[in-house]
């Protein structure tokens, strides 16, 4: 039996330990804010936090989730009150919006570790997250803005 937390709530799972966390979250637990984009950790749309670190949930198996604490976009703030979410709204980052929950989770993890990242530091961390609509300029601006609010 695999025991873990999702957004603070204890959960158990006794299915195939090879199943990626992404599909557990989406198809079994119903946390659909975490998106499927590539299945190979190439696009970042499925980014969640595991013990506070950003991970690609498509490439983390349920076996690896055992004993850890997972945070999804639903656990960040359902009202959109996290400073990163607020910055995303103020800068009006999204176009289609599909990749943005993954972008936000990656940005939150970045800002947790680096309170005032430079452009280069943002690029280095955020280049794992694809946005086909091409909103990178606004993502970078929103991260700077959130950093200001967090400071």
């Amino acid at each position, binding site marked *: 039996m695999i025991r873990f937390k999702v957004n603070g709530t204890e959960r158990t799972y006794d299915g195939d330990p090879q*199943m990626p966390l992404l599909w557990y979250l989406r198809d079994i637990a119903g946390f659909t*804010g*975490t998106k499927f*984009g590539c299945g*190979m950790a190439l696009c970042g*749309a499925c980014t969640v936090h595991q013990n506070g670190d950003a991970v690609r949930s498509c490439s983390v198996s349920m076996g690896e989730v055992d004993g850890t604490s997972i945070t999804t976009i639903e656990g960040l703030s359902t009202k959109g009150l996290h400073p990163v979410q607020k910055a995303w709204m103020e800068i009006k980052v999204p176009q*289609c*919006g599909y990749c943005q929950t993954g972008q936000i989770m990656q940005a939150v993890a970045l800002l947790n570790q680096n309170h005032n990242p430079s452009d280069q530091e943002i690029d280095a961390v955020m280049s794992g997250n*694809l946005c086909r*609509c091409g909103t990178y300029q606004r993502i970078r601006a929103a991260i700077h803005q959130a950093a200001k609010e967090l400071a």
Partner: protein
Amino acid sequence: MNNIQNVSRRRFLKGSFVAGTFVLGARLVPEPLWAAASSAAPVVFQPDIFLGIASDGTVTIVAHRSEMGCGSRTALPLVVADELDADWSKVKIDQAIGDPRYGDQDTDGSHSVRSYFDQMRQIGATARVMLITAAAKQWGVSGKECTTEPGFVVHKASARKLSYGGLAAAAAKLPVPKKEDVLLKKRSEWRYIGKDNALFDLPDIVTGKATFGMDANMPGMVYASIEHPPVLGQTIKSYDDKEALKIPGVKQTLTISPFKPPHQFQPLGGVAVIADHTWAAFQGRKALKIDWDASPNAVYNSDQFRKTLESTARQPGKVVRNVGDVDAAFAKGGKIIEAEYYTPHLAHASMEPPVAVAEYRDGKVLAWAPTQNPQAVQETIAGVMGIKKEDVTCHVTLLGGGFGRKSKPDQVAEAAVLSKQLGKPVKVVWSREDDIKFDFFHSVAAMYLKAAIGPDGKPTAWLQRTVYPPIGSTFDVNAKYADDEMGLGWNNLPFDIPNHRAENGPADAHVRIGWFRSVANIYHAFAIHSFADELANAANKDSVQYLLELIGPPRRVPLEYKPEEQDEAKRYPLDTARLRRVVEIVAEKSGWGKRPSGKGHGFGIAAHRSFLTYVATVVEVEVDGDGQVQIPNVWTAVDAGTVVAPDNVRNQFEGAANFAASLALLSEITVTNGVVNQGNFGDYKLIRMDRAARHTHVYVVESDAPPAGVGEPGVPPFAPALYNAVYAATGKRIREMPLSKTKLV
């Protein structure tokens, strides 16, 4: 988990609209449209089915176009709300099902606002007049003494006001005023149009609550993943699913019949693995053993095909525009310049792969899908399953990107076909590999251009030929000429050249070809604006000055229009004054000419009108010692006529620069023996933040002209502007997309 099912049309009418609700449209058109019934007589276009006001003041506006990131789901309701003088914070948007009574719902061609701006204004203004009349009656005053403020009718003289919600029931009993009796707001009175409003769905997007197609569910549904034939047109000879059925969670396998040519939007056919969840279905597919039959498309090799296209482009083709006499002008001599350009297939690769959920029951289909065209869903499923299209109900979710791919609903038909076989709802999920290998690809293209330059450096003659498998091949197996794509930047060269001929050569398709954001404008603009820069350099002139000389004096370019384009021709003449203006703006804003190019640093320009919008783009590049290109700045000036949401327009053009940076620098689909070689973001490369345009500066020209497109027009000028900058920086001329094919050092 599933908020989509809570917005069924039936509940919308019976739930949201309580007693006393003023549904403007319900009295103009048969009420059942609000309830998704299909018995009413077809109405070609009835704008007033779009609006309802409840007695609590809630204004519900129907969005009949799909939202894939371009903002039309916000923009069109915003126009209604403005003319209605509604309180935008009390507006709810209800996404329309597919139904021809809404008019055209194919959200493509950058025309949502262009085609529906006037009608949406009229709807809002009509309702506003009726609410004013209702209030005036109650007060016993003339309607002319009344005004409105958001959500209220106001009688200033007596300092009284009544809410729209309170007036709704009375307004519903009034006759609908004639169009000529409805006064639209003056531009200066607009509250929302032209202001920086956020996307309606923004809060849901940043909290993960927004429902995309990938998030749509139906009770009792199963998941399906489909192994498609690797080569277009292959059929199943035999297959073995023994290992697949051993995978935990896999329930069974089913076959899907191959399409009947032409393929249109029909399913490709193949073997579906049905499972309890998406991952089991994916795993089951890996364990399938399938023996495929032969297909004539197995001869397709994109490398060899390139040679065929290029050789066709060197031969005379079908003339699609002729001005003066190019051959006579070439015979007179001058400096002759020739160049060939090539672009590969591209895949759309929207972040959300194709996905759909559908249920077949009692001869009817209910589907939820991220589709650009719910009416195409109806037609496709009806055709494939032999039912009436009125018996297909298609709800539209948000789209995780579309870019033209999601105008083709093959995956929705797959879900419907499987549901019929299984007797329960089915969710079909395409993997990224499915998405990239089985796309309706942006066409591969070859262009040949030739010009003669006179003593003043200006061309005396300009010949251009383009060759590619047309999108028409998706609908007609014999289609070889790109008749429908000529208007996309090929038969409308806006240059002042006395002798000009545009031609199109024939080509066969061996993969599915389809619309891709900006469509043929991408390769046409690439060839034309690279060639213009080549001529400028051959004439030893500044690229901006030369471009302005090519565009020539302010005038309306005489073009031939098809009968169905006459109205468009009248409202949107090709006006070189507007094209010149965007060029002049970006030249000024970029500081063109102030910093010399060379030594790995350069500026390039291109200006292209597409989807009736005038765009000029200057790209700045830095090329390092390894030949790696960085894009510090992009300046884009946009004249899209009247603009509803300027900040969204800026976002579209910032995004377009990066969408175009992907195809200009990195992306390429190749095919070997009919099989697509790429499959995921490792080999089908897209631009990431570290190489994306660092600062894109967008200048939206203030204009009273009718609205034009904004979703697509930012893409076409970018690649030629970038390549012209690379030439200025390095002296290397790029004649093939993507840039990664050319060694810069």
